[in-house]
């Protein structure tokens, strides 16, 4: 009963978090990608499910794959635990497979769990002792740093409980005939006269063998509860954490922008304006004063598309984008990861305010550009697409950067002076440099007169 309640509470919390995040993502403007479900599915299987881009860095890719595979497969064991919890059985899958196969199966999961445990320890060392450069950037201070460590410690603790649970269970099975309490005896006598040991956890048996049977039952139950409640807690925690990528990687890769990376999105409102300027189109007859003047580019997250915000909630702050950013590696302030993190922070801020104020919601006076992202960061981008290429889950940090640049150029008209000169040249002379358009073909004369 207690278990079912815990399960329902977890489901409830996760559902409300799901609604909250979904609403925040929908703060963004509409986005309609190329309709190509086959290609999208292919990418999702290859990149999200198959982890293809993670292997651009083979060693880390392999370690990440261990955790990923462990997570996917250990879910089968979690399923058993959940069914046990609901029905009051113990190891309900055991009779289904028979002692030997069950032992091998759980042994395999334990091997994965050991892999997860080991990898998490290596990752903790990489983050805190070896100090991999990309985990040590300014945007990784505070919560981002703590969050990453918490997840790793969480996983280590969960694995420890799993092993303790299995080890104590093995001992109890061996002592099943000594169990005074009939209920306990029935509980741990799953395999009749062939008590099972599991591949990894049997190493812990000597550690617990000295305990009395009563203590063991207590410890086994406690480990069982801590393990499963831990997993429920983890599931809830994930929705607040950068670790949300374990779910969002899939939809995010599915909604990859399929155009060539070099193509910047068109602004149809300006196409219309240009056509009117060039006399190719008449202004709409109903274009009255009441028409709201459209704003250009992005000043806040609400000016970005929902796909940009989905990107931000998917980001796990691995920093591969920042690591390959030419501006960042030469010491400029721009960090693509920071921009993506800022988008999530800002969406969260607006979302929380909406929930707090309810129907009396009024926007605050903060903005993504200005309060989170500075002009200096935006101006340093070479639009080289290295960040887009590097992201293992197809996040596009370039799009929000260029959208905010559009705001700087068209709403603030405050690009660097050199750009102002360049723009004037393009507009007046048809070249970014101050050459007369009549001189454009001079190279041909020069060539002929050589």
């Amino acid at each position: 009963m207690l278990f079912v309640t815990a399960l329902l509470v977890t489901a409830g919390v996760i559902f409300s978090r799901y609604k909250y995040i979904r609403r925040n993502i929908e703060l963004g403007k509409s986005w309609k990608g190329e309709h190509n479900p086959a290609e999208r599915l292919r990418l999702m299987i290859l990149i999200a499910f198959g982890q293809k881009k993670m292997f651009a860095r083979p060693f880390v890719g392999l370690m990440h794959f261990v955790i990923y595979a462990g997570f996917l497969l250990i879910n089968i064991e979690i399923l058993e635990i959940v069914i046990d919890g609901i029905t009051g059985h113990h190891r309900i899958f055991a009779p289904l497979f028979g002692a030997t196969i069950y032992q091998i199966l759980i042994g395999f999961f334990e091997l994965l769990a050991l892999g997860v445990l080991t990898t998490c320890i290596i990752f903790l060392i990489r983050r805190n002792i070896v100090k991999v450069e990309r985990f040590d950037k300014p945007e990784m201070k505070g919560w981002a740093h703590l969050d990453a460590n918490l997840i790793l410690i969480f996983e280590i603790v969960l694995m420890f409980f799993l092993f303790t649970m299995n080890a104590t269970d093995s001992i109890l099975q061996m002592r099943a005939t000594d169990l005074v309490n009939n209920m306990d005896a029935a509980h741990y006598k799953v395999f009749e006269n062939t008590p099972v040991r599991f591949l990894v956890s049997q190493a812990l048996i000597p550690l617990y063998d000295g305990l009395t049977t009563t203590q063991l039952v207590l410890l086994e139950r406690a480990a069982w509860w801590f393990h499963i409640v831990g997993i429920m807690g983890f599931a809830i925690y994930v929705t607040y954490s950068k670790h949300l990528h374990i779910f969002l990687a899939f939809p995010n890769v599915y909604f990859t922008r399929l155009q060539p990376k070099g193509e910047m999105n068109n602004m149809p409102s300006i196409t219309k304006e240009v056509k009117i300027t060039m006399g190719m189109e008449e202004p709409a007859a109903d274009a009255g004063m009441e028409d709201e003047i459209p704003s250009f580019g992005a000043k806040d997250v609400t000016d970005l598309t929902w796909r940009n915000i989905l990107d931000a909630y998917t980001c796990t702050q691995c920093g591969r984008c920042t690591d390959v950013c030419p501006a960042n590696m030469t010491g400029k302030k721009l960090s693509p990861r920071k921009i993506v993190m800022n988008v999530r922070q800002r969406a969260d801020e607006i979302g929380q305010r909406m929930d707090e104020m309810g129907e009396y919601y009024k926007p605050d006076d903060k903005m993504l550009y200005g309060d989170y992202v500075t002009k200096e960061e935006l101006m340093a981008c070479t639009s080289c697409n290295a960040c887009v290429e590097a992201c293992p889950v197809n996040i596009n940090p370039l799009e929000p950067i260029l959208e905010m640049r559009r705001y700087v150029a068209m709403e603030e008209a405050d690009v660097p002076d050199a750009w102002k000169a360049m723009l004037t040249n393009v507009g007046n002379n048809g070249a970014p440099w101050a050459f007369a358009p009549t001189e454009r073909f001079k190279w041909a004369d020069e060539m002929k007169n050589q």
Partner: protein
Amino acid sequence: MSEETLRIPTMAELSAEGKSPEILFWVGCAGSYDDRYKAVTRAMIRILNKANINFAVLGTEESCTGDPARRAGDEFTFQMQAAMNIEVLNNYNIKNIVTACPHCFNTLKNEYPELGGNYDVIHHSTYLQKLINEGKVKFGGGEFKGKRITYHDSCYLGRANDIYEAPREVLEKLDAELVEMKRCKSKGLCCGAGGAQMFKDAEKGKKEVNIERAEEAVAVRPDYVAVGCPFCMTMMGDGIKHFNKEKEIKVLDLSEFIVGAQDL
């Protein structure tokens, strides 16, 4: 090649004669005005002449594609340029465009269609590879035989449009030793000039991007750095100069290798 036979036909001329070319060679602003990069334009003209291609240029009717304006955020200036260029191109009923500039290439190919300009646009690396494969351009190693060449991937050709092999295949024909830098192909490092950075000073940092990249190029001890982009050419050239290596390491465009090898 004697000077009398060198053809540089303009669209206006061909159109007046009622003719239309097979391809339009889009020269670009750097190709028209930049002293160093004009050599690439000349190289292309020589190759097109030698291969006997029915081509034309726009001459004074060409204008900036608007790429740097769009990347700097000024969509209005970009679209004004695009609208004017598209009008010219459509009036001449242009179908095929070849350009040596990856930024012009990307804009013409990917960004003009939505504004009413639909052309088959090819970067000169792909076009040169095609001419070589068709046997229209033939050359041996010439002065490049056995030399070390490293190719610098430009972002707007590589990551932006997935063109990695064509430039390398052109260079392979030189009988030279192709060496790759640590960061190449999809992991290639920007020269630092894209996204309109060419036209302003870099933000404060500890290093210039082109120095970082030139350092990588120098490290593989090449005789030549091959580029396929006017911005890359300037940035790599300056970077090599920064290390005082301009005597040992020359920065050349793909087309210049062909002209050099063929002694055109």
